[in-house]
């Protein structure tokens, strides 16, 4: 039996093509994935991300606990409402999950974790809580739904739908959030566009979804979500990284704080094992489509290196195929590489990513 979000019927009413996504019955698209992609880049689209799980952590020592639990430094969160992207690591330095930590008050932090990892994440967090700060309250919030509204016009359309939202949120900077009556509104996302991720009670989700639709926000499925996040150069857990990979080899060194004296789970392993691999961006020069698990062959200083595409696909904004690939750290921007696609060796270029930001191609 597939799990359903509170918007399941709303998706079906909008003729969504539904797919099994890690045990969840989710919309892949509502007719055309490409149109949904362009709508988000050019106007506004909305995604049901209620399969993701908000977890509230409450109590006096929440910050102390999070300092140890996650690899990024929650001491960067000084203003209430501020958000932080981070990995949660195993003691061996592998990535248990990537997540966002929202700082609401010294006694209330909210984290949002991936759907596929939610159960193991909660089990891990509870185990660490029991060891480090047993007085903290850890509450998975399946009573909440989550809708991401993304695109250059996303914020303005949300303001049309939620009374008073404009006054409450127009001064939010990127990665800031606020609470407005039953809505938790964060200026975050997974598309490379401006917009909000909005967490709200399950019972309000369908009416809110329909009101956004009436305001001209296009429903967008997991298909467009994947091409948008790939263009934005954002990792997908389970594909670009997992418990066997280090954040240092996953393009996430910027999220890991190894400088402060703070100890965190996985820190020693990262210090002991500097990365020998990296994630690179690829743009395909020949005709074709890059896909996950294809082999990348690169030459550098007379040596040959082999790597593997972790996420690949067609970029609707650039109109070429792009990919993220894991390969030896020696390979650098502008190196020429080839990718084995079926029986062919196609030429690709190593580029700095993101590939697309705020509607514009960067490569």
């Amino acid at each position, binding site marked *: 039996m597939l799990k359903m979000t509170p918007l399941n019927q709303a998706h079906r009413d909008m003729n969504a093509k539904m797919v099994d996504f890690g045990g969840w019955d989710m919309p892949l698209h509502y007719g*055309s*994935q*490409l149109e949904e992609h362009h709508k988000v880049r050019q106007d506004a689209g909305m995604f049901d991300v209620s399969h993701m799980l908000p977890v509230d952590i409450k109590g006096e020592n929440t910050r102390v606990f999070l300092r140890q639990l996650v690899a990024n430094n929650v001491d960067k969160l000084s203003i209430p409402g501020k958000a932080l992207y981070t990995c949660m690591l195993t003691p061996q330095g592998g990535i248990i999950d990537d997540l966002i930590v929202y700082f609401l008050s010294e006694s209330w932090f909210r984290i949002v974790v991936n759907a596929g990892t939610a159960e193991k994440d909660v089990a891990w967090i509870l185990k660490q809580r029991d060891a480090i700060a047993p007085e903290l309250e850890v509450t998975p919030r399946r009573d909440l739904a989550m809708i991401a509204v993304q695109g250059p016009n996303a914020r303005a359309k949300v303001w049309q739908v939620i009374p008073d939202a404009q006054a409450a949120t127009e001064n939010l900077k990127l990665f800031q959030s606020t609470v407005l009556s039953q809505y938790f509104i964060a200026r975050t996302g997974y598309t490379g566009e401006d917009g909000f991720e909005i967490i709200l009670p399950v019972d309000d989700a369908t009416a809110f979804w329909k009101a956004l639709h009436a305001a001209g926000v296009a429903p967008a499925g997991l*298909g467009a979500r994947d091409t948008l996040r790939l263009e934005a150069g954002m990792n997908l857990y389970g594909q670009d990284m997992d418990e066997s990979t280090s954040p240092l080899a996953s393009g996430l060194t910027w999220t890991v704080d190894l400088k402060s004296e703070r100890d965190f789970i996985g820190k020693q392993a990262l210090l002991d094992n500097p990365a020998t691999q990296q994630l690179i961006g690829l743009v395909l020069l020949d*005709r074709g*489509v890059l896909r996950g698990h294809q082999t990348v062959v690169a030459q550098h200083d007379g040596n040959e290196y082999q790597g593997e595409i972790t996420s690949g696909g*067609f970029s609707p904004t650039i109109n070429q195929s792009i990919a993220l690939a894991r390969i030896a750290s020696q390979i650098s921007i502008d190196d020429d590489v080839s990718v084995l696609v079926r029986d062919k060796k196609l030429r690709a270029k190593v580029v700095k990513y993101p590939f697309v930001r705020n509607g514009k191609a960067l490569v």
Partner: protein
Amino acid sequence: MSIPTDLKYTNSHEWVKPESDGTVTIGVTHHAQELLGDMVFVELPQVGRELAQKEECAVAESVKAAADVYAPISGEVIAVNSDLESEPEKINQDSYNAWLFKLKPSNAAELDGLLDATGYQTLLENEQH
């Protein structure tokens, strides 16, 4: 969408149109494009290539996946629809007119082994269960 009755079909979702000059035109069905989603890339066979029946000879890639296209019958490739290389979305828009390639059959009797519209309809119904 109804299945055109003047075409033949394969289990792998190609359609085959027997032309009056004895050649055949080949494409992928409406159902195939629906399963794949928005098409973004098509690789066509070389004109002049001799194909065996069921040989992989073209690739249709969507935003979601790559699908091999198989020769429904054996024969020589006599034309390809290179418009699809720049406009693969035509397969989504009108799959029964967006042909991929044409063959000169080497054994026209193989056409008799293909499905007719009713047989293809039955195949689709069985796939859904």
